[in-house]
């Protein structure tokens, strides 16, 4: 049996999405910028996709821009606003547990002369609104926050935090990295006070290499990719028709009956967490089951190195990811593990299980039974 429990790394593409993409490559393969029929046909896919996203997010179509994925969206939101507003501002705020797609950009901007504040989070991975308020200054250009943390599934109350930011400085932009949240939560930027929102396709059964950045019309931002002037000159490059069409269909399918799917994921998550705790000597990182994201469980198996557990499970057809990249030569805890101040003995024993709407109860049962079988052996052979 196989149990793919690494859906936060990437997901299997829906077959309907694959079929649609094949059609855009084999039949309607035109370049939307071409003036002839082939171009017009291809353009329809983009228009259709944009309509879909506008409906899901409840935003005007003109505020949606396609990118090569979550990383580009994050880069653009931060670098684009920093560059466009450097006359009036010089400061950006990120959290200490950002994904490198934000964290490394903040490091880059710091080298370019911008001031950067890295907000601490608590042990559950949550931002303290009071500390956030203190961090926002008169010259703060943008605050970037992660809706759902990719490692431990911590969720932020974005609407509330946005109010805090805007209350302190109404000119500060709110950027939200929703790469792990989109497809799990209804997200409405206008109601939640989000000025920019990063989304990636391959986390919700769409293809890799495509994502989007929602940008509120009033945001002052410059492009970071220049060229043929596609997407109103804001993001040049031939439109990725197969990717965008596939991405939109995947989003549409994901958001159909979302509440029912999410409830099912929470039930599976609960089952997994209960089963893990019953194994003994297991620590679950982050928030309580129903408060955290429905699809991420981060567990530390005390006394077992995560990499070894990962390979043991892989041998039995179970795919998970290790909490930290580790080897004897390089044992660096991830930014998230450092931010939540997890002790070393837990970080090096941490494995992430991530579910999707395609995850089955059998997969969870199988995973738990294999863990019950292999853990005693793994705990017996350790470095002394």
């Amino acid at each position, binding site marked *: 049996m196989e149990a793919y429990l690494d859906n936060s790394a990437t997901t299997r593409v829906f077959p309907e999405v694959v079929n649609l993409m094949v059609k855009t490559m084999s039949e309607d393969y035109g370049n939307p910028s071409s003036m002839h029929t082939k171009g017009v046909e291809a353009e329809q896919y983009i228009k259709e996709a944009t309509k879909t996203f506008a409906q899901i997010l409840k935003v005007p179509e003109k505020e949606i821009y396609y990118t090569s994925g979550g990383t580009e969206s994050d880069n653009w939101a931060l670098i684009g606003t920093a560059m466009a507003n450097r006359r009036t501002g010089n400061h950006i705020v990120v959290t200490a547990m950002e994904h490198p797609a934000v964290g490394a950009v903040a490091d880059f901007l710091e080298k370019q002369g911008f001031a950067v504040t890295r907000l601490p989070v608590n042990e559950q991975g949550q931002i303290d609104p009071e500390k956030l308020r203190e961090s926002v200054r008169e010259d703060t250009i943008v605050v970037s926050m992660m809706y759902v943390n990719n490692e431990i599934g911590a969720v932020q109350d974005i609407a509330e935090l946005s109010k805090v930011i805007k209350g302190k400085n109404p000119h500060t932009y709110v950027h939200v990295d929703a790469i792990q949240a989109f497809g799990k939560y209804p997200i409405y930027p206008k109601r939640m006070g989000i000025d920019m929102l990063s989304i990636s396709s391959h986390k919700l059964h769409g293809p890799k290499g495509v994502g989007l950045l929602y940008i509120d019309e009033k945001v002052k931002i410059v492009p970071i990719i220049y060229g043929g002037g596609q997407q109103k000159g804001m993001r040049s490059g031939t439109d990725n028709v197969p990717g965008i069409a596939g991405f939109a269909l995947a989003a549409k399918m994901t958001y159909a009956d979302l509440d029912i799917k999410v409830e099912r994921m929470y039930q599976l998550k609960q089952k997994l967490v209960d089963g893990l705790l019953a194994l003994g000597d297991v620590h679950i990182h982050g928030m309580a089951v129903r408060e955290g994201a429905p699809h991420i469980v981060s567990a530390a198996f005390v006394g077992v190195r995560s990499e070894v557990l*990962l*390979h043991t499970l*892989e041998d039995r057809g179970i795919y998970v990811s290790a909490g930290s990249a580790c*080897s004897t030569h390089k044992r660096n805890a991830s930014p998230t593990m450092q931010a939540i101040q997890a002790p070393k003995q837990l970080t090096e024993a941490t494995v992430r299980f991530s579910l999707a709407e395609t995850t089955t109860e059998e997969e969870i049962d199988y995973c738990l039974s294999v863990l019950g079988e292999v853990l005693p052996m793994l705990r017996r052979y350790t470095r*002394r």
Partner: protein
Amino acid sequence: MFRMFLIKYAEIGVKGKNRYLFEDALIAQIKRTLRRVEGRFSVTKESGRIYVEAVTEFDYDETVAALKTVFGIVGICPVVLLQDNGYEQLSKDVVDYMDKMYPDKKRTFKVQVRRARKNYPMDSMELARELGSDILDAYPEFSVDVHHPQILLQVEIRQNIYVYSEIIPGPGGMPLGTNGKAMLLLSGGIDSPVAGYMIAKRGVVIDAVYFHAPPYTSERAKQKVVDLAKLVSRYSGPMRLHIVNFTDIQLYIYDKCPHDELTIIMRRYMMKIAEEIARKEGAVALITGESIGQVASQTVQSLTVTNEVCTMPVFRPVIGFDKQEIVDIALKIDTYETSIQPYEDCCTIFVAKHPVTKPNLQAIRRSEENLAEKIDEMLKEAVDTAEVVEIDE
């Protein structure tokens, strides 16, 4: 400007009656190596020299880089090949050559002529003198130094005329396949690929054995060793990489022996397995990347205890090298970047905090008695189930 290379080789020259065997091995290896380079080449032996000539368009840099991986080559001389159209034309071409090769000119030179075709109207001395003065007439910034010239311009009169002055150093050593076969213990670290390179350099064909310990070592660690074997094989030629599953033996030792002796006992069994595979594959020696004192298992006492299980000679070409000296070679042969990828190898997964550094052979043997029940069967199993990856770059 160059379409031809004169290949210099040294040690082969002293091998007496076996000389042609060595030359043929060298030519075979040059041909094999040039197959991975763009273009077609003819490789010929003519009066004790090897010439590589491009017969189609080719990439100069790529070709030189490939020739630099052929053991046995001491120097690679890019040659300009001229037709014999009389002295006037030769003089013009040679002056032109000097201009193109040395645009700054401010150097000393000497012309050396070899006249293999004796019916050429001028003799060697005369030719050298005339060409030298023509060069000086054209470019007075050059100057002549017959004792220690910076440029030694060689002109060889054969059916055609060969002109060259540069020698690009080759790797040296002996042509592959002229010195038997040995089995390399390849770990994934920096030292063992270097050790394999050094022994292959002496003309020895090598195979390799890697000890894999899933789930404690990952698929990526194994892939890294395959990648390293490929890098080494650019020099050493095709090799068979034997991947031994070592997990059960390691855990058995863990269960039955004192923890601080785990590494040393483990290495003794690795040597035994490697030797058994070597025997099956027709190899007559083992190669390791051990270097005295580098880690606890490489103290002189540890090496002695490890060595004790071997009946074949064990070559340890980096035994007296400092780490930096080994790294320098790894950088030169391009294995370093791959070696430092951070994947765990099976020697470190259970390593004790304080392993023995001065193991006592009698004590180790006593500990190994605890393994008597199953170890022979496990060793046989490890040898029999080893996976073979054919490496050919």
